[in-house]
C-alpha cells in the first residue's frame, strides 16, 4: 500500500511525537507513506472568504503533486487535513476559483480537484481495515477507558468534510475498540476546544477545555485521545489552567496508542538507549 504523504509544519516541530509514532506504525502495518517533495505550509487556516485565492495556492500545489503520482494524499494533522480537503473541494466545485488558481500556479497540467485527501484514521479504517488492525495488535489495551475527542477540524463543515457522521462520529471509538480499549461515550466529544482563540483569549478557552475534560471525567474516562495537534496542545496545556486543573487527564495522540498496541514503543526506547 503506497500513498502520498503530506506532513505539515507542526508535525515536523511541536507535534513530532504524532508524526513519529504514526510513521512507525505505518511501517509495521506495511504501509508506504511517501513524503511529498517540496511540500509547503497548507495555509494553516482555510480561507473562509470566497474571494481569497492566494491562501489556497500552497494547498493546491500539494494536491496537484499527489495527483501526478496517482496516489491518495494522506495527512495526519487534522488541521492540514481540513485545509487540504476543503481547498480540494473548492477546486472541484468552484469553476471560477479553480480557473484563477490554475492561472496563478501555471502548472504543467490543469488541476481540478482530482486528488483524494484522506486522514490517517481513514487509512486505518478503509485501507487497512479495523478487523485487520485488531488482528495485528500485540499488546491490546484491555481495560483502558479512553475518551476520544474529535474537535472541529475533522468533522466540520460536514457537507465538505464527509469524514464521519458529524454529530455522532464513531471512527475513533472503532479504532479504540480495534486496539482492545474501552471507548468512553460523552457528550462533549465533538465540541470545539477553542484553540484558535488560545493566543488571545486564554480564559475563554480554559473554560471550554474544562467542559470537555469534566464531561470525559464524569463519564469514567481515564485518558483522552485526539487526532489534532491543536486540540492536543489545548487539552494538555489549558486543562492545567482550568479551576479544576489539578485532577488532570492524560492526553494522547491516537498514534501513540497505536504504537503501544502494536508493541513498537519499547523498541524505540531500546533504540534511544543505544
Amino acid at each position, binding site marked *: 500500500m503506497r500513498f502520498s504523504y503530506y506532513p505539515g509544519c507542526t508535525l515536523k516541530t511541536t507535534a513530532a511525537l504524532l508524526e513519529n509514532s504514526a510513521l512507525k506504525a505505518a511501517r509495521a502495518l506495511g504501509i508506504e507513506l511517501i513524503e511529498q517533495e517540496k511540500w509547503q505550509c497548507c495555509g494553516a487556516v482555510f480561507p473562509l472568504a470566497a474571494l481569497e485565492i492566494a491562501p489556497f495556492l500552497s494547498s493546491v500545489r500539494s494536491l496537484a503533486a499527489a495527483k501526478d503520482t496517482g496516489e491518495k494524499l494522506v495527512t495526519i494533522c487534522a488541521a492540514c487535513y481540513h485545509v487540504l480537503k476543503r481547498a480540494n473541494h473548492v477546486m472541484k466545485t468552484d469553476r471560477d476559483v479553480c480557473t484563477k488558481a490554475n492561472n496563478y500556479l501555471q502548472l504543467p497540467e490543469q488541476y481540478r480537484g482530482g486528488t483524494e485527501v484522506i486522514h490517517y484514521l481513514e487509512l486505518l479504517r478503509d485501507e487497512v481495515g479495523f478487523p485487520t488492525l485488531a488482528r495485528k495488535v500485540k499488546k491490546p489495551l484491555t481495560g483502558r477507558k479512553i475518551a476520544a475527542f474529535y474537535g*472541529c477540524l475533522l468533522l466540520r463543515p460536514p457537507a465538505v468534510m464527509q469524514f464521519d457522521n458529524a454529530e455522532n462520529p464513531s471512527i475513533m471509538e472503532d479504532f479504540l475498540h480495534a486496539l482492545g480499549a474501552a471507548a468512553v461515550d460523552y457528550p462533549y466529544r465533538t465540541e470545539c476546544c477553542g484553540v484558535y482563540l488560545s493566543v488571545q483569549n486564554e480564559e475563554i478557552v480554559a473554560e471550554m477545555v474544562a467542559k470537555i475534560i469534566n464531561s470525559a471525567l464524569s463519564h469514567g474516562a481515564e485518558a483522552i485521545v485526539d487526532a489534532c495537534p491543536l486540540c492536543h496542545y489545548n487539552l494538555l496545556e489549558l486543562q492545567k489552567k482550568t479551576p479544576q486543573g489539578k485532577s488532570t487527564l492524560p492526553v494522547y495522540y491516537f498514534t501513540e496508542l497505536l504504537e503501544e498496541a502494536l508493541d513498537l514503543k519499547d523498541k524505540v526506547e531500546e533504540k534511544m538507549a543505544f
Partner: protein
Amino acid sequence: MKITRDNLCSSIVKEIAEISGENVAGCYQCGKCTAACPVNTVMDILPHQVLRFLQLGLVEALLNCNTIWICASCFTCAGRCPRGVDLPGIMEALRLILLRKRGFSRIKAGVIPRVADKGMPEQALVSAFRKYTR
C-alpha cells in the same frame, strides 16, 4: 432608526455578500446558530443577531463588536443551520473588511512572544496571524 433602501443595499453590505458569497436574506432567525455556538456566552452580539443586523443593514455595530473576533470558526453553526447559511464565512468577511483597512491588526506581532509558550503548535500561531492580522 430610519430604514431606507440605501442602507439596506449599501456598498458595505454588498461587499460583505461578495466576500462571503452568502445571501443573508436566507436566514429566517431561528437562532440555532446561537444555540449551538460554544462561545455564545462571551459574545456581545449573538450569532443570529449578526445576521439580523446585516439584514437590516446595520453594519457599523458589527464592525465594532467583539463577536467576530471571538468566533472560533468551529463551523458548528454552519453545520446545523437549516437554511445553509455559512455564518463563519460572514464573520470572516466582517473581519476582512476591518483587516483590509490600513494599519488594522487585531493582534500586534509583539504580543506573540509573551503569550506563546514553547509547546504551542506553530499552526495555532500561524492561524492566529492569518486570521487576525493583515
